[in-house]
């Protein structure tokens, strides 16, 4: 409790409040803007960590994370194209509401629902982070190694449409992580001394997220502008409130555990929440035509899972979403290693962050409800200038890592890789997780085997490790069984709508929305089946 109060003291200093405000505004802006997600925004902002203090930077990044989620829902509701795969449902149901003249209510229930879910999620973090940290701090290197292997499998298999592509991406990332110096020898440096320190994670993240995305969009730039639904002040009537509050709570209950366990990000709980609301609703006939419950529940699930992802990030140093991955990079750039020791070694940082999340949430609600019409204007930003700006800031960010033109060449190569990944449907998240966790995994393995003097059986000598390997085996079996029937699990959630980590896949996804567009209820009916397919 004292620590939490101290956290609020940290978060409520004028300077940090300003950073929280800045983060929330920036996050919402990039969330609304097409083409930029919170992960790319954080990657572009990493240079800020050179001068700003660690608590301010993390508070701002958390604000961007939450703000980005909020802004993303605005885009989905007003444009009918989900910026992230976790917004697919919002794009279906919210856009239907907007077309029926209820854009204001859709935005309002998304905003208040995000606030409710984010706040409950943060309070859960207050309770869970210390107790989980107490447990994980006792994990030995073998267990920790096992948990990292689990994280690799989780981001690769549960999220991806194709296991093959997920693993390709993961091992490309691990390959990039090999570059550098290992116990005094140059490894994978192609004889280039500038590579002796490895490829900076900032360059990788900016190259894959920003340059790759800009090149990909450039190759397929939509020449016809999208139809944007005009919006006024968000508000809700009494009956809207009555229909929304239960979905908010149920969505939170679904979303938080999915985020907290490294088990599949935000899209699965949003689908589950949608299915649950449809089943429980007194107005099932409205679903597919703009039911407010179908926006309230999934949006709450989305935000609760965002809060949940901070649990493995802060206690284990394991990121499970692209945005959390970049936050990890930011923390590491201060020489702080997130992991089981973090809460003991940096209590001020962790509690300052946990306190600031509540503040960021409140700011989002207070600032953004009145500003919704203004944010909607961002959707009209001219695309050439938008993507030229992304390239400009990406170059600047990568250059300031080492002030070497060589890094810009690497950046371009990685951008080409990012382009190819988008072309061939390779998910981005496993790659970036591989780059970041690869070195840690190698050192944990070395540590475990050094203690056991090379005896490999030490890797399954701890009960936690055994349990974790059993879970991995179970995941493998389940996905193989399901794979034999056609697809891995998350794709089965919406059978003709593929979901991928942080909006990586999408052809069929948009197709499913378009079918709804055609007035066919089919994909909605199918979307209500995830409970069966996930059981």
């Amino acid at each position: 409790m004292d620590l939490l109060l101290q956290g609020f003291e940290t978060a409520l200093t004028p300077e940090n409040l300003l950073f929280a405000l800045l983060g929330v505004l920036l996050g919402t802006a990039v969330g609304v803007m097409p083409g930029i997600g919170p992960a790319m925004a954080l990657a572009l902002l990493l240079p800020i960590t050179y001068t700003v203090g660690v608590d301010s930077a993390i508070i701002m990044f958390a604000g961007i994370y939450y703000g980005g989620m909020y802004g993303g829902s605005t885009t989905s509701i007003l444009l009918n194209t989900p910026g992230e795969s976790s917004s697919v449902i919002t794009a279906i149901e919210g856009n239907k509401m907007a077309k029926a003249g209820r854009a204001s209510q859709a935005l309002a229930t998304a905003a208040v629902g995000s606030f409710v879910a984010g706040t409950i999620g943060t309070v859960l973090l207050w309770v869970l982070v210390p107790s989980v940290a107490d447990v994980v701090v006792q994990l030995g290197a073998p267990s920790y190694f096992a948990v990292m292997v689990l994280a690799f499998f989780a981001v690769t298999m549960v999220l991806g449409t194709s296991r093959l592509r997920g693993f390709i991406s993961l091992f490309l990332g691990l390959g990039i992580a090999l570059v550098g110096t290992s116990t005094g020898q140059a490894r994978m440096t192609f004889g280039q001394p500038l590579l002796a320190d490895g490829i900076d994670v900032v360059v990788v993240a900016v190259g894959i997220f920003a340059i790759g995305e800009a090149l990909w969009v450039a190759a397929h730039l939509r020449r016809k502008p999208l139809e944007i639904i005009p919006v006024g002040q968000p508000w809700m009537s009494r009956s809207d409130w009555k229909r929304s509050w239960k979905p908010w709570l149920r969505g939170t209950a679904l979303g938080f555990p999915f985020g907290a366990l490294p088990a599949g990000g935000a899209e699965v709980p949003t689908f589950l929440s949608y299915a649950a609301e449809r089943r429980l609703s007194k107005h099932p006939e409205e679903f597919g035509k703009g039911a407010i419950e179908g926006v309230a529940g999934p949006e709450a699930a989305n935000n609760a899972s965002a809060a949940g992802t901070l649990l493995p990030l802060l206690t284990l140093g394991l990121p499970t979403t692209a945005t959390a991955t970049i936050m990890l990079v930011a923390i590491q750039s201060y020489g702080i290693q997130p992991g089981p020791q973090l809460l003991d070694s940096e209590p001020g940082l962790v509690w300052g962050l946990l306190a600031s999340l509540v503040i960021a949430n409140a700011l989002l609600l207070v600032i953004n409800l009145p500003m919704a019409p203004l944010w909607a204007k961002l959707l009209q930003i001219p695309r050439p200038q938008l993507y030229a700006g992304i390239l400009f800031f990406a170059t600047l960010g990568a250059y300031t890592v080492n002030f070497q033109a060589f890094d810009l060449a690497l950046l371009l190569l990685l951008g080409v890789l990012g382009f190819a990944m988008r072309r061939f449907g390779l998910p981005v998240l496993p790659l970036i997780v591989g780059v970041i966790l690869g070195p840690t995994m190698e050192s944990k393995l070395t540590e475990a085997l050094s203690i056991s003097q090379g005896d490999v059986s030490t890797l399954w000598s701890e009960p936690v490790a055994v349990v974790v390997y059993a879970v991995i085996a179970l995941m493998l079996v389940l996905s193989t069984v399901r794979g034999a029937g056609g697809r891995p699990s998350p794709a089965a959630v919406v059978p003709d709508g593929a979901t991928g980590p942080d909006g990586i896949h999408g052809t069929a996804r948009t197709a499913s929305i378009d079918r709804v567009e055609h007035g066919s209820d089919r994909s909605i009916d199918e979307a209500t089946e995830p409970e069966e397919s996930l059981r």
Partner: protein
Amino acid sequence: MSTSTDLTERVSADTSPRIVDRAQYGLAAFLVLSGGYVVYDGTTLGDAFADQPVQPWALSYAVGGVLLLLGLGLGAATARGDRAEAEDGEDIDLSGSTDVRTVGLLALVLIANLALIDRLGWAITGALLFTGACGALGSRTWLRNLAVGVALSVGSFYLFYSVLGVPLPAGVLDGVL
């Protein structure tokens, strides 16, 4: 909406068999080659300490080997008709083919920047980068873009210099800025 019918058609084309995505063989070959190189690079590494349980080459062998296998697996899947789901987005219209010219121009702009940044300085190359990228993406308001580009590059130069205390290269404008 015309795009929606395009999409539906394309999706049905995705699921129909016997259409081989030849470009995907290129990706598979890339994976096999890089996997092979990673393994080869591993063979050039010696033991660090005799008692070190995980030698520097161990991970090279593991990662390179798996990359090789994944490349072969992708090749096989491609031959069986596996096709990629290209990434969609707000500003992306997948109904057309790849706009090679735009991507090539953007790559040229980026290469020009990295070649010139140390000589001309960020204030100049940054502005050219922004203007060039706008032009490549189809904007024809050159003067306005150049003005915005100069404002961005000079502004970021001074922001980094005075606020963040990090000097960006001034290049030929050294002493002027």
